């Protein structure tokens, strides 16, 4: 699953540590989510959506959905 966390974070001039503190998770967690190595749970995705004041689908993109859309 792709995401726009790095861009959204950069817009606010937040470091990974800043975002981690706001989400109450470790910096490694933010790094793993940003690099696509770890998909967050639904509660954490909602927390991110609330924090960035965006709908979840604007932050996360489902790769499978994108592939099937481009195939059509």
């Amino acid at each position, binding site marked *: 699953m792709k995401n726009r966390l790095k861009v959204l974070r950069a817009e606010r001039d937040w470091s990974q*540590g800043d975002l*981690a*503190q706001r989400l*109450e*998770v*470790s*910096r*490694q*967690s*933010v*790094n*793993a*989510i940003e690099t696509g*190595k*770890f998909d*967050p*749970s639904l509660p*954490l995705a909602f927390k991110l959506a609330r924090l960035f004041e965006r709908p979840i689908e604007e932050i996360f993109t489902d790769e499978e959905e994108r592939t099937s859309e481009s195939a059509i």
Partner: protein
Amino acid sequence: MNACIGSPAQYRFQDRFLFFIVPLFVLDGILDIWGFHYHHLHPAGALAVLCAAVQSSPIIGFIVIIGLYLAEEKDEFQKSILVQSMLWAIGVTLAVTTFCGSMEKYSQGPRVDIASVQFLFFLVYIVAIAANRWRYR
């Protein structure tokens, strides 16, 4: 919560490990080296059962503190790292002991001391957790 230096659950896990598992390991080592190898003590009956229970207590205690950590930790990514490391430790320990057991059965190889298998488990767990932390640094 400070995101850079670990969660309260991680601190509790470390404290439990230091003050609960390490002393059990020391007791285990004293029994093993001083009692069985140096003095060649061979307890029987209830004492043998008690000594065997002491020898297996670090692994039981470790599973308990892992369970407590998983229940207390809110960071799902940190939980997943711990679970991955545990799976590596369990998998490698089972594979190595199965291999050694088979070698012993088929080719009359040297006898594997089953009581020391937990040291292999802890060793692989420590290597796996260090590797995972480095991977997601």
